[in-house]
Each structure stands twice: as structure tokens, then as C-alpha cells.
């Protein structure tokens, strides 16, 4: 079985995986990083979004071996100690989460959007979140949070 090594939230992590092991499985089961969630099996829901080399990726659609050598950031790696990342803080401030299950993927996806577009319009946010399902919020407050979070990030994370 292959061994993979990647930088996860700033630390080098290695593990033995099967060829078919998904990145999300490696993160959750090998590394115990259970903040990244699995909500579906067709790459539709986006609960599993993480950053691979700075870009948002659905970690259910990426093999662990594909991320060998990569720099991976999960929701656990976003905050600076006890200080929430501006996007996390914006979700809290604007009640952009309810049950919290889609939230890690939403936040990671939103950070990628903000890195590309520091002041996204409501329309741009709604279009960007095409790959993230939420059943609780009706998206209203998520959209508010993403826009506020992007502005608070001031053009980059």
C-alpha cells in the first residue's frame, strides 16, 4: 500500500493508504481531522471542501495519493489559535450556520472565493456556492457572511 506525505495545516503528516483512499478519508480516519465532513457520494454537497495548494477542492473527489506532497488546509487549520479567521468570524457574526455540518466546506469554499475576489457581489457569492449544499439556512445569511468575510479579509487570507 502506498505511503503519502503531505503538509496538513502546517505540519508534515504521513500515512499508509490504499490506492482508492480518498483525501477526505485520509484526513478524517488517518489523521483524525473530523472537521471535514462527508455529506454525499456524488461530489454534490461540498461539506468536504478543503484547500489543496491554496485552492478549494472537494476532498471526496481527490485521492489521498493525488495530494501526496501537497499543502493541505482544513477547517481545523484556518483559525490563528483562539482567534477566528475573518471568514469564520463573519459566519458567526451573521448567523451563517445552524447545524454546522455544511459549515466547514462552506467556509473553506468562501475563503477561496475571497482570495480570488475581495469584494464579491451577492450574485457572485451565490454562483460561487453552487457546489455547496445547505439545508438549514436558506443561504440568506451565508451569503451575507461570505461577503462580509471577504471584505474583512481585505483582499487575501
Amino acid at each position, binding site marked *: 500500500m502506498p505511503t503519502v506525505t503531505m503538509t496538513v495545516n502546517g505540519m508534515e503528516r504521513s500515512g499508509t493508504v490504499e490506492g482508492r483512499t480518498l483525501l477526505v478519508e485520509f484526513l478524517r480516519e488517518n489523521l483524525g481531522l473530523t472537521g471535514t*465532513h462527508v455529506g454525499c457520494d456524488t461530489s454534490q454537497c461540498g461539506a468536504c471542501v478543503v484547500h489543496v495548494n491554496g485552492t478549494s477542492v472537494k476532498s471526496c473527489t481527490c485521492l489521498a495519493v493525488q495530494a501526496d506532497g501537497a499543502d493541505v488546509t482544513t477547517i481545523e487549520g484556518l483559525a490563528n489559535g483562539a482567534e477566528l479567521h475573518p471568514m469564520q468570524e463573519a459566519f458567526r457574526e451573521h448567523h451563517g450556520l445552524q447545524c454546522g455540518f455544511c459549515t466547514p466546506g462552506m467556509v473553506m469554499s468562501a475563503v477561496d472565493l475571497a482570495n480570488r475576489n475581495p469584494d464579491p457581489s*451577492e450574485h457572485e457569492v451565490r454562483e460561487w*456556492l453552487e457546489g455547496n449544499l445547505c*439545508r438549514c*439556512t*436558506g443561504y*440568506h445569511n451565508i451569503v451575507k457572511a461570505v461577503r462580509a468575510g471577504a471584505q474583512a479579509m481585505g483582499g487575501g487570507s
Partner: protein
Amino acid sequence: MSGNGTGIGASVKRKEDTRFLTGRGRYTDDINLPGQLYGHILRSPVAHADIGGIDTSAAMAAPGVHAVFTGKDMEGVGGIPTGWLIHSKDGSPMVEPAHPALALGKVRYVGDCVAIVVAETREQAKEAANLVDVDYRDLPAVASIEAAEANGAAQVFDEAPGNVCYDWEVGDRAATDAAFENAAHVVSIDVVNNRLVPNAIEPRAAIANFDPATSEYTLYTTSQNPHLVRLLLGAFVLGLPEHKLRIVAPDVGGGFGSKIPHYAEEAILTWTAGRLGRPVKWTCERIDAFKSDTHGRDHISTAKLALDADGKFLGLHVTTKANLGAYLSTFATCVPTYLYGILFAGPYTTPAVYCEVKSFFTNTVPVDALRGAGRPEATYLLERLVDKAAHELGMDRVEIRRKNFVREFPYQTPVALQYDQGDYDATLDLALDASDWAGFEARRAESAARGKLRGIGISTFIEACGIAPSAVVGSLGARAGLYESGSVRVHPTGSVSVFTGTHSHGQGHETTFAQIVSDMLGVDFDAVDVVHGDSAKIPFGMGTYGSRSLAVGGTAIYLAVEKVIEKGRKIAAHLLEASVEDIEFENGSFTVAGTDRSTSLGEVALTAYVPHNYPEGLEPGLEETAFYDPLNFTFPAGTHVAEVEVDPETGEVELVAVTGADDVGRVINPMIVAGQLHGGLAHGIGQALMEECVYQDDGQLATGSYLDYTMPRAADLPNFSINHNTTLCTHNPLGVKGVGEVGSIGIPPAVINAVIDALRPLGVNDMAMPATSQRVWQAIRQAQG
């Protein structure tokens, strides 16, 4: 009530958010127990078949496999029970067939549990399940209400002729018939309430463990009501005493009704863990969730409304057929009856109402509560019919509603409910104003100039939440009480733990309940924590559904706090050397009335636990529990307005504006309440425009993944205009009513009424849900001949 920055009425940021935002939530699938094995549930790929035999030998021989159990292994274990006994018109009890956790002799829907394969790893269990050889001997299937009631239809259960579970009624049929005889107008409608898949984003999961040292079972499960699971699983299925069965529903990623039922998998896992002496974990994949999470809605109805010459409603007659699926899920039977038929007065003074409901077994996933549960189905029918009546009588849609509003309270409806309070004119006026109803024609003209068809739709509605009282629901067939518990523990140095029998899976109870307790006790908000979800920690309670948590569970907490204050007054009186009657409590201080002599709650709490100087005969400690059994339902009400723009070339419906004007009673946390309204609206809009669960005639689920079943996404929805007019519930001390289901109840008819309004100039007078572009396009083409 201080109304301060964290008190009742303040938009306090949520306590639970930090853990969810940093990836530290603890959902069931995040939990791993030492030595755990993985279970894979093998499900039926066919809708209806006799099981000729099951050969598990190849699976047993597969790598890592510890066990394969089938229905025969579990024979003798109790079936999965249902929670509500319905009686038919003739007084006979409903047909209540056995529901073995693992299919025994027969499978009855695609997704029915056939076997559990237990292995060292998830992958091993899943692969070995492919090696289980089941001899399915196909039987004809009935996958819809129409198929189930057809002559010569296949029988889902031999003991249910015609596939009928019950044929129920409510209301006075003779009085309703008489109303129609005297009517100036009769307006009829046929509607289908489309079947939905709840789709909480967290799939169901469970881990069961048996500890031989204590003979205790622990089940971690994705449930909205852990104590209810413990009661059903322990007492009815496995025969385990409550003190040896602990149910933990940790963080749960949405429920919407689909995590109310006690599921077969919970019984299978717990039983298997006992047999193997190892923890067993199971996580549902989404593809299996589609075919095993309970579905919602699925009604076919015909109704007629009798009106006098002025448009006053005289009588309403509703005939509904409901699909219950293949087995009776926990609350399946009450959803199309006592959560449906009794809603048909709506906000109107209709003096005679009669509703009959025939419910059918089919070879489909069991149907149970889904956000609103019965009330969206009733509201959709009624508000479509009222709009149709306005059109046929040539009346204004708003005026026909206003003409029939209930205005005197309490109001006894002809279908059992007694509304305690409301102001339907106020929410109607608010919605008309907020939606700029008066300015619509100008917007319609502007759309027309761009070649688009614009429409506006309205619904005025009531709902019944916090189902109660226990004695009444018991007399109607409920097999449980519907009270709630709350415990308040003031610790020796003044911080507070609150224990609730309700369960939060997105609703923010940890915040809202802490606001109530903090406000009442004058304790810092951060010094109050709310504990829920673990039957070993919390008093017996009924969980969260039917918008009951605040009205019923919040009231229990309120009453427990009152008891704490009452005991505190006795301690304070002793410390202050005054009589108890003279002690007043405000903002965390006990004061002798008319003096400046006071002592704090913290001092009283410390005294309670270090009772050196203490009232004679008073128990030490400062912890109180209250069980609250409501006196009545609560009746949130409101008006919803939807505005759409239809592209006549493509049939695409764009939802351009959504306005809610709601009376949900006293609002504890406006931010959370708005979020609940948003979510309900999205759910209702999903039903109206996108979502539809489709079965093929052979019982195969055609919409079995997110690739086939349309979920509302961010770009499908507009921002929502949320507005409140508050009347207080008269029979609970906080005056609260409930908010979680409002959107899914009120908005679907408003959306469809708007689509019809847009298409009416083309001659389209009807539209089914979901109003997809295909369906709208077809309606336009058909109207154009």
C-alpha cells in the same frame, strides 16, 4: 426580564458556533470507539419480493468479516413500533403490520434492510456485502397511491386488503354537506402534494457498544429525540431496561423530521454489538439515505369549498389519500391525520369542515414527518383553493381572505382546535406593505416589456405547534406523552447547567435557552451552559420536532428556574433574617422589599451547598426540575407573499421576491428566529419549484441521489424579507409559539399562486408542484393549443 444585551429579545451570537466553525463539532461519524468494527447494511435492490433464501457463506469467508446477520438471526427480536394508533371511521383500529428490523421472508421496498455485514474495516464490510447471495423472488410492486388502490393491486401486506392502513375522518360531515346545499358557489380543486426527501446534510450514522462489565448498552445515533429512541428501542424492540441503555445524540447535522423515527438500523446495530461484544459503527452513504431516510408528504387530494354570494366561506370538504410507504414509521400515521385534518379551518371562520383521509401502504420508503408534517399539506390545499375561489367568483385575492378571517379569540374551529390568540389582519397588512403588493402591476408591466410574465401570490395561514396536551393526544391515539422536561442546576459558585429533553440540531437551543435562564436568574450569559442529547445526563424528555422546543421545552426550563428562585427566596430570607414573603428577586439579587438589604444568587447558591447557616427543614442544594405538559397547541400564523418572473420561451421560473410576515409569539433571539424562517422558506420553495421524489412503476427510486433530486442551491433563492407582528401565546409564560416550520408551511402555496398568476393571461389556471421549467413550459404550450 431585563432585555439586556444577552437577555430575552437580544440577537446573541450563538454559543455553539465556535466549535462548528473550527471543525470541533462532534457528530456521530466523528466518534470512534476502541476496538470498533464496521457494519454495512445490505439493502433490498427490489421493491417487493419473497426471500427464497440467503447464503452468507461467501461473505463470511471474506477478509476481515466477523459476522453476517439476517432476519432469521434476529427472529424473536421485537419489530420496529409505531407511535400513534389511528382509528378508522367505523371505529376499527388501523392495520399495523409487523416491521422486522431485518427483513423476514419478504422485502417491501428498495432499501429495506436485509442483512448486516460486520468487518474490521468499512471497505471490507461493504465488499463482503456484495457476496451475500439473496434469492429474491420478485413480486409485483405498488409504487404509488394510484397503484395501491387499483383493482387487483399487489398487496404489500396480506392483512391490509386494498393496501389500506386506515380510513379516517374529522369534522361534521352532515353539517358540511348541509353547507354545500345552501351555497351560492362551490369551488373545487384537485391537488397533489409532492413526495420529498428530507436530505439533512449529515447522513444518518450510529455506533453501538455493549459493556459486559456493567451490562450496559450505549448507542450513539443521529436522533432528534434520544429518549424516545431509548424507550422504543429498549422497551419495544430489544427488551432492555432503560437503566442499561444509554442513547447519545451528539451534534446532529440537521433533522427536519427525518431523524425523529426510531430506525431499524439502530436496533440492528445495538443487537449486533451485544452479540459480538465489540462496538459496531455504521454510517449511511447518501445513496442509501435516499432509500432509507423517511420521506415526506405524498398526498393526492380533492376538495371543495362552499361560499355564499358574498364570498363568505360556508363549508369545506376535503378527501385525501396519503402514502405511508412500506412500513409504519414512528409518527407516520398521525402526520396525515391529526397534524393535517385539524388544520383545515386555517385562519378562516368556515363554520363546517370535514376531512377524510385514506392512507395506503406502498412498496416505497416509509413516510414520516418532514418540516411542517401535515400542516404544509393542509395549507397548500386550502390556500390554492381560496385563490381559485377568488378567481372563479371574480373577487380580489386579498379581500376574500380578509372577509373570512377569524377575529375573535379564543376561537373554536369545527375541527378540534381552539386558537388562543392571533391577529391575521396585522400580518396580512404587514406582508402587503413589505412586498409592495400595491405596486405590483407596475412591476408586471416592466417585466412584460422585457417579454417576461410576472406573477404575485399570497397565502395566509395558521399552524399548530407544540402538540399537546398529553391527555388529549393520548385520547386520539398517541402512544407517548408530549410534555417536556427541564432541569436547572445552580452550581456552588453560581454558574448554571441547564438540562433539556429537547435536542438541538441547528436550532441554537444552547444559546436561546441560556438567554432565558441568564435573563431570569440575572446570571452572566457565559455562566450558563445547556446540556442536551445524552439520556444519561438529561431527564426524560420527548425531543425536538413540531416546533415544540421553545414552547414546551423552554417553558419547562422557565418553570424550573421559577422553582430555583422560589427555593432561593427561602435561603435568602434566612440569611437576611426576613420572612420569605418579603423577599423579592431581581437581576440576580434577593432583596428584602422596601429595604437595601440584599444577597446575591451566588451567595444563596453557596449557602445551599455549604448549608452551615441554613433554614431548618430545607433540603441543601440548588437544582430543580420541571416537567411541562402544555395546555394547548400554540398557533403561529402569518402571511407569505411570493413574486415570480416566468420566461415564456423556456418555462423557467425565477423567484424574484419572498416576503414573510409572521406572528411566532415572543421572540427570544431575533437572529436565530430569522434563520429558522429563512431555512423553512428555502425548504418550502424547494418543494414548490424544485424537489420531487419519483418512483418508477416497478418501485425503483428514480431520484436516488443529488444528481437526480434537485436541492435548492444558493443561486436558486433570493434574499428573504422577514417581518414580525407579535401576539403572545396566552397559555405559556413566555408567550412563545414556535418558528421552525413556518416557512415550509406558508410559502409553497404562495409560490404556486404566483406562478399561476403569471401564467393566467395565457389561459393557465393550474400548476402542480414542483413548478419546474419543463412543467411550466408544457402548461404554456398546452394552453396555447
